[in-house]
Every structure is written in C-alpha cells, then in structure tokens.
C-alpha cells in the first residue's frame, strides 16, 4: 500500500491562534473532529515538548462518505496557550479533558478543567514521559500498589473458617 487515505495531510498550526486555524479548516469542510490527542517529545529534547493533534474529517452528510482528512499539530508546552475547541466541535470537551488528564496540557479558557478518566486524588499526569513507570497511587490497599506477599494469607481468613 503506497498511500493511506485515512492518514490525511499533516499541517502545523500555531498554538496561540489554534481556534482561528481550526475554524478556518472547518470552513473548508472539515466538519468532524475525529480525534484529539497529544504526544510528549521529552525524550527528543524538543521545546515546546508536546504536540497536541487534532484529526479532522470531511464528512458528506448526504452520502455518508469520508472525502478527505487532515491532521493539525500544535506545538505547546505544559502552560496554557491553547484555547478550547468545544465551541467548534462539542466532542472536543471530553477530548480536552483527556489531554489534560494524561499529559497535563491546559487550556486558557478552561481554568477549572477536570480529569476525565483518573480520580481526583491522582497526582501528576501518567502519559508524560517523565512520569515514573513504576509509580503507583492506589486509593485502597497497599500504598506501593505491589502484589500481596502470597495468596496463602487467604487460608486463614474468617469467612472460610467461620471463626
């Protein structure tokens, strides 16, 4: 396969004016926000370290056909530069919360943004490359999140022996 139609064209857009660029793309017919995600380029030593990626699709409502895709990349740091795209596509609401949850990229006009998947007690952002791979933050159970020593401790539990 020489060409992947689903990949689409890649375009870099400035983070400070992301809404202008995105509404421009929406005006060109990219009416569906397929996905919004983020990549951490810490290991490559890049500044700014994150790429927030908007994947857009031209969906013809009459035929239901996909007639072109585009991938818009915004290079940002952890500080709030981007503005929210939820007024263009309501789907961006949860996707932005996921990007905040996993990567800690914040948005200028969403100061009180909530985590989407993890619990409020969680500290840090687990998909950042500098989040320690072995760090565990359980709500209950051993604080280290390690396995129990041995299943044999269950042999003496009250509900089996009735004592």
């Amino acid at each position: 396969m020489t060409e992947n139609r689903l990949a689409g064209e890649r375009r870099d857009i400035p983070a400070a004016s992301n809404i202008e660029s995105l509404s421009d793309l929406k005006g060109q017919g990219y009416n569906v926000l397929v996905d919004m995600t983020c990549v951490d380029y810490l290991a490559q030593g890049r500044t700014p370290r994150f790429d927030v990626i908007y994947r857009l699709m031209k969906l013809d409502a009459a035929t239901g056909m996909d007639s072109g895709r585009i991938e818009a990349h915004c290079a940002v740091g952890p500080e709030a530069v981007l503005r929210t795209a939820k007024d263009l596509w309501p789907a961006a609401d949860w996707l932005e919360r996921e990007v905040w949850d996993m990567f800690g990229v914040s948005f200028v006009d969403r100061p009180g943004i909530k985590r989407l998947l993890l619990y409020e007690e969680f500290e840090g952002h687990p998909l950042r490359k500098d989040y320690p791979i072995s760090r565990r933050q359980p709500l209950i159970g051993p604080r280290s999140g390690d396995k129990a020593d041995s299943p044999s401790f269950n042999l003496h539990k009250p509900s089996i022996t009735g004592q």
Partner: protein
Amino acid sequence: MPLADGSVAGVMTTQLDAALGWARKYSIFQYPFVTACCGMEYMSTAASHYDMDRFGAGFPRFSPRQADVLMVVGTISHKIAPVLRRIYDQMAEPKWVVAFGVCTCTGGFYNNYSTVQGIDTILPVDLYIPGCPPRPETVIHGLTMLQEKIQKTQGQFR
C-alpha cells in the same frame, strides 16, 4: 461447632455443618462484578452450552445483599477498587470471592499506573481462576473446587 468438652452433642452439630455445606454449595447465588472482556467468557459459561446451572450456580443476583459468591470478572482499576471493596462489605456472611481471569489474580499484563495488581491486595480471595480469558471448562473446574471449599465451611453466621 463441636462443644468444648467434646461430648456427643458435637457429633450432631458436625453433621449439621455438613448438611448446611451441602445445601450451600448447590445453591450458589453469585454476584457477577463484570468489568472487562472476561465477562464474555462468564456469559458463555452461564449460557446453555456450558450451563453453570447444572452445578448449582445458575442464579446471578444483582444485589450484593442477596449474593454469597462475589465473582470479580475483569480488570480492576484503582479508581473502581473502593467500589468493589464496598460491594464485598455489603455481602452477608458466609461469603466467598472468586478472582476470574488473570487480571483479577495478579493484574495480568497491565502492570501500570491504573490497574490493581491482583484483587487480593484489597479483599480476601477464595479461588483464583487464571486464564486470559479462562475457558468455560476452567471456570467449571474452578466452580467445583469452590464447592468443595464451601462444603468444608464451618461456623455460625448471623
């Protein structure tokens, strides 16, 4: 419970325990706590081809207060762990816990920030059924092993 002095009355209660164990092991009301893909295998075991009901475990109850076996089926994340513990605490004694699938036994291949590394870190487990997911035959084997364990259960429960 046998009497402390070892008198004949103890024989009666031992036989009563055996009868209660026999009754309990063939009338398992399980609470399926299904969170992931193992649930499909649980359904397959419960449906007519394998039919868990043949072994006396055909009646899932969706209230923990009416259940006596908690079947934890699927990956348990740290976020849902307090919920699972609360379900366990709501169940009336005597109660048993089955870890169904390798994610509940040890965390499986999810050794990451979000997954509980075996539900035995948060509640006591009676039976581990490994497999990703376990075959229905494995589940039925596990169920019969659990029945042996239930048969041996002694004591008084209120």
